[in-house]
């Protein structure tokens, strides 16, 4: 079952897999089966956990159907040319009982597949959020509303698409090996085990329950988390962000700069002010921030920041092989753990910035009004 993305050039993996039994067991418990990519991200434990915890299918959705979410995943993976995630979603659809013919028919033209209009609208929304980011956010929201999708479900679709943007970048930039995942549905033992895999997937997937937001974290993304207040997404997202900021591998300032560069590259007015405020608290003046974001360099930056800031802009729009080569070039300048964390922060910044533009824009408008 060759996938359309198998033609996409994919470099050898730039990270060394490192076993961490505790993290692997955690992923296995949550996903119902082993995660083949976890060992590549263990040097930055928050990233390995976030890639599992933020996945909406494990109890984060209240309204959105898991089947629709799978299709949104598929279309966003295709948009980002992520061979790894695409193969994973494809294998999951196959394991859940979709015939190869049905999957291939959908792949030929995802947006004209034999699916209900609301599903097609959700897929188009996910694609737009990923492709055009803030520039297309308003039109995408309007199109979804016209299809009869309510605000709460729209936020869940947006979160699902953002998570895929995050996951796609993490796996693509690291060039996590794709062949095992792509070959999975063709192997005899997986075909024989298909009913068991289906059972495990179904068992681990669940809808969540409304959860009160105990506290709104201070600093960047507070508004974004608040937008999900009441949903199980909010506390999980807050926890993942707290773990990311607390990680000592890269400095908080360096991570903030990555978020700022991505927000600047996407021209995101929703995320920019919070990040700017946080950078000022880190001791950077407005002039220094402006200069760094205008030229991706500045005398205030240390050598690691200089590399990471310059790399962050590459993650906004990319071709897989090109971004993989650029990430490989960073290996001479960063430690292994720094590289993993830089990939993770940039990936998360891309997902959350696109999400913020979609979810927060109406609030911005009402604020100013």
């Amino acid at each position, binding site marked *: 079952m060759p996938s359309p993305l198998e033609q996409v050039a994919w470099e050898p993996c730039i990270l060394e897999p490192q076993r961490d039994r505790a993290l692997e067991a955690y992923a296995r418990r949550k996903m119902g089966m082993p995660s083949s990519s976890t060992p590549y991200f263990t040097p930055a434990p928050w990233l390995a956990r976030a890639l599992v915890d933020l996945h909406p299918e494990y109890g984060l959705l209240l309204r959105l159907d898991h089947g629709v979410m799978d299709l949104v995943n598929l279309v966003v993976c295709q948009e980002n040319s992520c061979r790894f995630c695409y193969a994973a979603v494809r294998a999951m659809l196959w394991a859940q009982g979709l015939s190869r013919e049905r999957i291939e028919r959908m792949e030929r033209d995802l947006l004209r597949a034999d699916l209900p209009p609301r599903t097609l609208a959700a897929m188009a929304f996910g694609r737009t959020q990923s492709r055009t980011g803030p520039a297309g956010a308003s039109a995408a929201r309007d199109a979804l509303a016209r299809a009869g999708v309510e605000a709460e479900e729209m936020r869940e679709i947006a979160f699902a698409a953002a998570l895929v943007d995050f996951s796609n970048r993490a796996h693509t930039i690291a060039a996590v090996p794709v062949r095992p995942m792509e070959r999975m549905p063709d192997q005899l033992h997986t075909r024989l085990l298909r009913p068991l895999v289906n059972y495990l997937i179904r068992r681990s997937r669940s809808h969540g329950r409304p959860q009160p937001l105990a506290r709104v974290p201070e600093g960047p993304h507070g508004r974004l988390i608040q937008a999900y207040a009441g949903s199980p997404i909010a506390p999980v997202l807050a926890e993942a962000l707290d773990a990311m900021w607390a990680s000592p591998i890269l400095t908080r300032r360096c991570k903030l700069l990555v978020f700022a560069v991505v927000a*600047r590259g996407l021209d995101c007015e929703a995320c920019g002010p919070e990040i700017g405020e946080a950078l000022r608290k880190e001791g950077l003046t407005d002039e220094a921030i402006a200069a760094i974001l205008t030229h991706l360099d500045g005398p205030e930056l240390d050598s690691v920041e200089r590399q990471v800031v310059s790399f962050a802009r590459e993650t906004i729009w990319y071709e897989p092989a090109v971004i993989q080569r650029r990430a490989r070039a960073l290996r001479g300048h960063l430690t292994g753990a720094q590289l993993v964390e830089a990939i993770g922060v940039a990936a998360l910044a891309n997902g959350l910035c696109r999400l913020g533009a979609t979810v927060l824009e109406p609030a911005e408008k009402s604020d100013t009004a």
Partner: protein
Amino acid sequence: MSWSIAVGGLLLLAVLLLVLHRERRRAASLQVQLDAAAIELQHLQEACARLAPAGVVQRLVAGGAAAESETAAERKVVTALFADLVGYTAMSERLEPAVLARVLNGYFQRASDAIHEHRGHVSTFLGDGILAYFGAVQPNPWQCDDAVRAALAMRAAIKEYNAELTREGLPPLGLGIGIHRGPGLAGMIGSRERREYGFVGRTVNLAARVQSLTRVHGVDILVTEAIREQLDTRFVLSPMPPEAVKGIAEPVLTYAVREDVKAGA
């Protein structure tokens, strides 16, 4: 009786096996044809990617007419880079056509690589000229720095290429590059029969005019005031005297780009 039923059964089984075998062969043959078509389509997409940005091609292939309208023109601020070979006409008269084509292709490849490396998009080759854009396909707030870095990379690539040409006894190439930033219309532009991704507006014309000023000022890379305003101040620029250019009322102030970010800055 039972013997004839057994023979009949065996015959039926043989026929079924034969039919199954034929169907499998037919299916295999169709699969081969399908794979060949997929490869052909892939080659076609790769060929198209040389004519328009890969993203635009993918959208057109994926979405057909709907995508075409989606990638219709939109107003954008874009940086245009226009490069031209100095002394090409004289060289074209001296060299054999096959040698000339090889030299030109070598130049185009190196220049395109430098532009692509710095997130530019080569729009078209005009004779010995190259027109490239920065920020036309995706938003790029760093387009001026990118364009100037691309020009500097082209300068370095041509220097290296000239060393190769000289070793072969061929004349070296000279380069003139003009860079300007401004608004225009970007998207799929053209007739129904022939449509290509492009950018139209005064910005492109001025970049071409500024390129022609490189000969007047005896330099290889010139940028306009609009570029200088946005450029990293650590680039080393030299102001040139204002010059009148065709189609522009006021004399145009330009700056020669001497080198990349100042050492130690």
